[in-house]
């Protein structure tokens, strides 16, 4: 028999039969397409991937892929994804959701997921609004934004997700936009390949309830790739400096990538399990001990 040919995956291999029901023009279509490309480039078969999401328009994403999917509870995608990764560390675990799901309702989970440093890729489709529930203020809505819950303009300053995750110690932080699908696919691929918690903020405009002057077309004109600016992605302070411009500049690419990845929680759990089971009595012996008493 000849040598086995390497399996090459096509983006279509990750596309399910379920058709997206997002509004035409939604930024999430481009994000989904970039994810298919990234997954095909990484080359893990769909049955080795678990995709977990919370609630919201973007959280429908697992259903549009052929990977194992869990469209879970609002704000709880990260705890579920961490459980999956610890139970089955061989799975490639992706987490997706929106800014409301990730920074408000699930905001308390994010710092702990980051400090545990499980090998997960968290992709947030940040549209600065609650779109599914018809346009309320979200944690990343800009100051003075008029919405159904802020008819006279938002009075709260927005969360800065990039600065937030860098400050919590995320070892991989990037930002993309569907206005540059090739760039976004590359960012997602790099995030997946990074051995640790990888955070990708995607500015994915809501075409129905979002800001008219901040749609994909405007992203094309405004975006600046960090690569073209000569940004050093291993420099945390420089990353923080760039992150401060969230809301005024659209920087795309890898803001920060820790060049010395720390051991992941899932790897440490596996090590500890092995250490505790090596040389310890088998369950049958423990049971025998009880029975003899």
């Amino acid at each position, binding site marked *: 028999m000849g040598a086995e040919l390497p399996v090459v995956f*096509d983006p279509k291999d990750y596309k399910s039969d379920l058709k997206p029901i997002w*509004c*035409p*023009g939604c930024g999430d*279509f481009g994000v989904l397409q970039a994810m298919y490309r990234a997954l095909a480039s990484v080359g893990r078969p769909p049955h080795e991937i678990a995709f977990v999401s919370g609630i919201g328009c973007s959280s429908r994403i697992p259903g549009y892929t052929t990977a194992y999917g869990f469209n879970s509870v609002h704000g709880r995608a990260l705890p579920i994804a961490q459980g999956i990764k610890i139970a089955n560390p061989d799975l490639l675990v992706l987490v997706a959701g929106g800014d409301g799901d990730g920074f408000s309702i699930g905001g308390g989970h994010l710092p702990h997921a980051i400090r545990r440093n499980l090998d997960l890729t968290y992709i947030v489709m940040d549209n600065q609004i609650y779109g599914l529930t018809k346009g309320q203020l979200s944690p990343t809505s800009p100051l003075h934004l008029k919405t159904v819950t802020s008819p006279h303009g938002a009075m709260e300053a927005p969360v800065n997700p990039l600065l937030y995750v860098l400050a919590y110690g995320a070892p991989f932080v990037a930002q993309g936009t*569907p206005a540059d699908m*090739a760039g976004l696919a590359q960012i997602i691929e790099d995030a997946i390949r990074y051995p640790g918690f990888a955070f990708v903020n995607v500015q994915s405009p809501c075409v129905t309830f979002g800001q008219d002057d901040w749609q*994909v077309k405007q992203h094309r004109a405004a975006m600046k790739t960090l690569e073209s600016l000569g940004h050093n992605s291993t420099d945390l302070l420089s990353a923080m400096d760039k992150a401060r411009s969230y809301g005024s500049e659209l920087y795309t690419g890898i803001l920060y990538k820790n060049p010395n990845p720390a051991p992941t929680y899932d790897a440490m759990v596996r090590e500890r399990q092995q250490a505790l089971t090596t040389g310890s009595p088998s369950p049958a012996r423990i049971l025998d001990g009880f029975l003899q008493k």
Partner: protein
Amino acid sequence: MSTKTRGIDFSKLSLKDALDLAILVEEEAEERYVELAHQMEIHRTEEAAAFFRFMAINEKKHGSELSERRKKLFGDAPREVRRTMIFDIEAPDYDEARAQMSPHEALTVAMSSEKKAYEFFVAALPHLSDPEVRSLFEELRQEEIHHQELVAKELAKVPATKDALGDAFEDEPLAL
């Protein structure tokens, strides 16, 4: 051009790779038009949906023609160029679609996609070194001009309002 492809060295592109690239460009456009048609159908925008389905058929036809040509020249030789290397070369941009878009707006989407493809082939030409590849790209560039003319003709027939397209796209696909 750099944002449209990844990992393709145009200076070293062989005729086989160039044909594969052209086939993938058509496949990507066909799939995107099918996706847009579906988006329109679920948002009750039937006329735009019909037009996007019509465009998908055309892209499929172009892709099949190129595939036959590739098969004649190179048989079943494996593909080196892959879908992960191309990004929206002729496929309409997702953000151009809108619920309740008019037939005129749908045609405008197709027009900008044809222009985009034309610009891609024009931008690639100076980087090509193989004369056969250059000739293929020149041919593809010319085809895009022809497609633009056909779309422009259709655009002229359709008012820039929400009016119906009529029967224009219910017959056999035009020879775009």
